[in-house]
C-alpha cells in the first residue's frame, strides 16, 4: 500500500474528470456519491499506507515514491565548507513521500474531507450547480493531498497554488450573489480578494524557493533538512528563506498582515468554510513550517518572527471575534486566532504541539462550521446571530455537537482542545518566554469568552428573529447530522493521543503521549527548546495546567453571565464606546489597506491604462495615419497628363545619368 501513495492525490482527480465531463448528464445523487466515493478511496488507501508505515522500525519511517521527472535543470557547482557535495545535478521530480508528519495531516485531510463531502451532499442538495461544487471540492482534495504528500518544495507549491485556486473558485461559488452589505462586497469579489492576498504570500514563497535551489541545488525536503542540520548555508540565507517561506504561510494561513481575506471567505458555502478555511488549506502554512523544522531550527531570527507574528495574530483576531455578529465570521476570526496559536508554537520550537493543535483544531473547527451550516440550513439562510436564539430544543443534535465543540475550543478537559492548547502554553512557559505565554493565555480567555457568547446567542435565550422563520426551524437531515456526530466524537477523544507526562500519572501511569513519540523523530527541534523541555519541573507544569483550566472555565462563565441577562451586553458595548467601535470595525484594517495599497495601485493602473491607450494605441494609429497621408501626397502625382509623366521619366533618366557620370 505504501507504494500506492501517489494514487491518493489522483483519485479525486478522477472525480473531477468524470463529474466535470459527464456530471450534467448524471443523476444528482450519483454526482454526490461519486464525489464522496473517490475521497473515501483515498482515505482508505491513506489508512493502509499509514498502518504499513507504523509497522516499520522508527528509523525507516520514510517512504518515497517518485512518479517521474519534471524538470532537469543542469548542474550546480557549490562550494560549501560544511557540505559534502561538490557539484549537484539539479532536478525536480514528481515525488511523494510518507513519513509520520505527513501521515498525521494526510489522515486529517482525507478523514475530515470525507466527512465534509458527505455533509455537502445534504447541505447542497437544493443547489442548482451541484456538479460544479463537487468538481471543485474534489479538485481541492487532490491539490491538498499533493501538498501534503509532496517530497519537494516545488511539488508542494503546486498543491499550494492549486488549493489557492480552488479556494478562489469555491469562495466565489455563488458568483452572482452579493455578500457583505456593509462593504458592498460580492461573493466574486471575496474570491478575488482571497486569491490576490494569497498571491502576495506565494510570491515570497517562490523567492524563498529560488534562493534555496540556487544555494543548495535541490528542493527535496529531506535532503535540505540534512543540509541544514549539518550547518550548510550562510546564516543570513537561512533566516531570509525562513522569513520568505513564512510570509507565504502568512498568506495561506491568514496571519498578520495577510489575514484579511479569511473573514470575507465566508462568502462561500459553509462546507467550503469548514473544509478549506478551517481544517485543511489554512493549515498548510503550519504544516510547511513544521516540515521545514530543520530550516527554522537553524535560523533563530526567523523562528522569533514566526512566534511573534503568531502570538500577535492569536490575540488580535480573538479581540475581533468578541463583537462580530455573523455566525460564520465569528468562527473565521476564531480560526485566524487558533492558527496564530499554532504558529506561536512552531516559532517556539514546539512543532509537535503545533501539529497537535492543528489536528484537534481541524476536528472542532470543522464541527463548529458544519454545525453553523446546520443552523443556517435550519433557519433558511439566516446568518446574523442577533436574529437567532433559543433554538436548542428544535435542533438537538446540532446543539449538542456545537456545545461539545465550543467546550473543546475553549480548552475544557478532557476534550481535545485542552490538551493541545496546554502543550503550547507549556512550551511558551518552559522556554522562558513569559510575555508570549501571557499573551497566549489572554487569547485563551478570549477564545472561551467569544465562543460561549456565540453558543449562547444562537441556542439559548429567546428567539429574536421573526415568527415565520421560528415556525420552520427543523433539525437537519441525517447526511448532515451524522458527520456532526463523528466529528464530535473526534473532538472528545482526539486529544487523548497527546496526554502530557504530568497528567498520565493521574490516569494510571505509563507514557500516554503517543503523538509525541510518533512525531519526535521527524521533527528537528532547536537545542534551546530541547533543553527547556528536558529541564522543567513537573510541579510548575501541574500548576500551569490548573491555571489553564481555571482560565477556560472563567471565560465560559463570564460569557454565560453577561449574555444571560437581557440588554447587559448592549450596555457594556455602549459604555466601552470607542473600544467597541474599533472592534466592530475590525480595527479598520481593510480601510487602511484600501488607502495605503489599493488607491496608489489603482492610480498606477490608470496611468498605464492612459499610456496604453494614448501612446501605444496612438503609435499604431499614427502609423495608419502616416500611411494615409503619404497616399494623399502621392496621389497628387497622378495628374493624368502625359507630359507630367514624361517629365518624371526624364527626372529618373537625369538622376541615373548623374549617378553614372559622377561615380
Amino acid at each position, binding site marked *: 500500500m505504501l507504494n500506492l501513495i501517489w494514487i491518493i492525490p489522483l483519485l479525486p482527480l478522477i472525480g473531477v474528470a468524470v463529474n466535470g465531463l459527464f456530471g450534467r448528464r448524471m443523476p444528482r445523487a450519483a454526482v454526490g456519491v461519486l464525489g464522496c466515493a473517490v475521497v473515501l478511496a483515498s482515505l482508505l488507501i491513506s489508512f493502509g499506507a499509514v498502518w504499513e508505515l507504523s509497522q516499520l522500525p522508527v528509523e525507516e519511517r520514510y517512504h518515497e515514491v517518485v512518479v517521474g521527472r519534471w524538470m532537469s535543470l543542469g548542474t550546480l557547482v557549490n562550494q560549501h565548507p560544511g557540505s559534502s557535495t561538490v557539484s549537484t545535478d539539479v532536478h525536480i521530480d514528481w515525488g511523494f513521500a510518507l513519513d509520520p508528519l505527513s501521515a498525521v495531516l494526510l489522515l486529517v485531510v482525507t478523514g475530515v474531507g470525507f466527512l465534509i463531502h458527505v455533509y455537502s451532499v445534504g447541505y447542497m442538495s437544493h443547489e442548482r450547480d451541484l456538479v460544479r461544487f463537487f468538481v471543485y471540492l474534489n479538485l481541492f482534495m487532490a491539490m491538498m493531498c499533493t501538498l501534503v504528500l509532496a517530497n519537494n518544495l516545488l511539488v508542494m507549491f503546486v498543491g499550494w497554488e492549486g488549493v489557492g485556486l480552488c479556494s478562489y473558485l469555491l469562495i466565489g461559488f455563488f458568483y452572482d450573489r452579493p455578500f457583505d452589505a456593509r462593504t458592498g462586497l460580492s461573493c466574486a469579489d471575496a474570491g478575488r480578494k482571497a486569491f490576490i492576498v494569497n498571491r502576495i504570500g506565494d510570491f515570497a514563497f517562490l523567492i524563498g524557493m529560488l534562493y534555496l535551489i540556487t544555494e543548495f541545488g535541490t528542493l527535496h525536503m529531506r535532503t535540505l533538512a540534512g543540509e541544514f542540520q549539518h550547518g550548510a548555508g550562510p546564516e543570513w540565507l537561512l533566516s531570509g528563506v525562513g522569513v520568505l517561506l513564512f510570509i507565504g504561510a502568512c498568506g495561506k494561513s491568514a496571519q498578520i498582515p495577510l489575514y484579511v481575506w479569511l473573514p470575507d471567505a465566508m462568502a462561500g458555502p459553509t462546507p467550503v468554510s469548514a473544509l478549506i478555511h478551517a481544517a485543511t488549506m489554512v493549515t498548510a502554512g503550519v504544516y510547511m513550517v513544521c516540515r521545514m523544522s530543520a530550516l527554522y531550527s537553524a535560523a533563530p531570527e526567523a523562528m522569533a518572527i514566526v512566534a511573534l507574528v503568531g502570538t500577535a495574530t492569536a490575540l488580535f483576531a480573538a479581540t475581533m471575534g468578541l463583537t462580530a455578529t455573523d455566525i460564520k465570521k465569528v468562527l473565521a476570526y476564531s480560526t485566524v486566532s487558533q492558527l496564530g496559536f499554532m504558529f506561536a508554537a512552531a516559532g517556539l520550537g514546539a512543532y509537535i504541539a503545533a501539529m497537535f493543535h492543528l489536528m484537534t483544531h481541524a476536528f472542532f473547527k470543522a464541527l463548529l462550521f458544519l454545525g453553523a451550516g446546520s443552523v443556517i440550513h435550519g433557519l433558511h439562510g439566516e446568518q446574523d446571530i442577533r436574529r437567532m436564539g433559543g433554538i436548542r430544543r428544535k435542533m438537538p443534535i446540532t446543539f449538542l455537537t456545537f456545545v461539545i465543540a465550543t467546550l473543546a475550543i475553549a480548552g475544557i478537559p478532557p476534550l481535545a482542545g485542552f490538551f493541545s492548547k496546554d502543550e503550547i502554553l507549556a512550551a511558551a512557559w518552559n522556554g522562558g518566554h513569559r510575555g508570549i505565554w501571557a499573551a497566549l493565555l489572554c487569547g485563551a480567555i478570549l477564545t472561551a469568552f467569544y465562543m460561549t457568547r456565540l453558543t449562547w446567542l444562537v441556542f439559548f435565550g429567546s428567539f429574536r428573529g421573526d415568527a415565520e422563520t421560528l415556525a420552520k426551524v427543523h433539525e437537519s437531515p441525517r447526511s448532515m447530522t451524522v458527520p456532526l456526530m463523528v466529528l464530535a466524537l473526534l473532538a472528545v477523544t482526539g486529544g487523548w493521543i497527546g496526554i502530557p507526562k504530568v497528567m498520565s500519572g493521574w490516569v494510571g501511569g505509563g507514557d500516554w503521549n503517543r503523538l509525541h513519540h510518533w512525531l519526535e523523530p521527524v521533527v528537528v527541534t532547536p537545542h534551546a527548546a530541547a533543553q527547556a523541555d528536558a529541564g522543567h519541573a513537573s510541579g510548575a507544569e501541574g500548576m500551569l495546567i490548573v491555571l489553564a483550566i481555571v482560565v477556560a472555565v472563567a471565560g465560559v462563565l463570564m460569557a454565560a453571565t453577561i449574555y444571560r441577562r437581557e440588554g447587559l451586553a448592549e450596555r457594556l458595548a455602549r459604555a466601552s464606546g470607542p473600544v467597541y467601535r474599533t472592534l466592530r470595525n475590525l480595527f479598520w484594517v481593510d480601510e487602511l489597506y484600501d488607502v495605503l495599497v489599493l488607491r496608489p495601485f489603482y492610480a498606477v493602473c490608470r496611468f498605464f491604462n492612459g499610456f496604453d491607450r494614448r501612446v501605444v494605441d496612438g503609435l499604431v494609429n499614427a502609423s495608419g495615419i502616416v500611411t494615409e497621408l503619404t497616399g494623399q501626397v502621392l496621389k497628387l502625382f*497622378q*495628374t*493624368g*497628363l*502625359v507630359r507630367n509623366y*514624361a*517629365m518624371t521619366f*526624364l527626372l529618373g533618366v537625369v538622376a541615373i545619368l548623374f549617378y553614372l557620370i559622377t561615380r
Partner: protein
Amino acid sequence: MPLGPEKFLILSAVIFALGVLGVLLRRGAISILMSIELMLNGANLAFIAFARQFGQAEGQIYVFFIITLAAAEAAVGLAIVIALFRLGDSTDVDELSLLKW
C-alpha cells in the same frame, strides 16, 4: 578647327535635349510628335559620329533602321492623333486626362 567626335556628340546631345524640351512644353499632339522626331534625329547623329570614329558601317545600318522605324512610328502616331481628334475635336494632350486620380 579639326573635326572630332566631341563636337558632333555635343551637338547630338543638344538636339536631343531640345527634343525633350519640346515634348515637355508643347501642348499639341502633332507638335509633340515632331519633337520626338527631333530626338530621334539627335540619336541618329550620335550613331553616325561613332560610326565615323571607328570606321565601321554598323552605326550607319542602325541609323538606316531608325529612320525606317521613325517613319512607321510617325504614320501610326498620326493615325492615332486623327482618331483622337475625331473624339474631342482638338489635339490638346491636356484634355486626355482620364487617368487622373
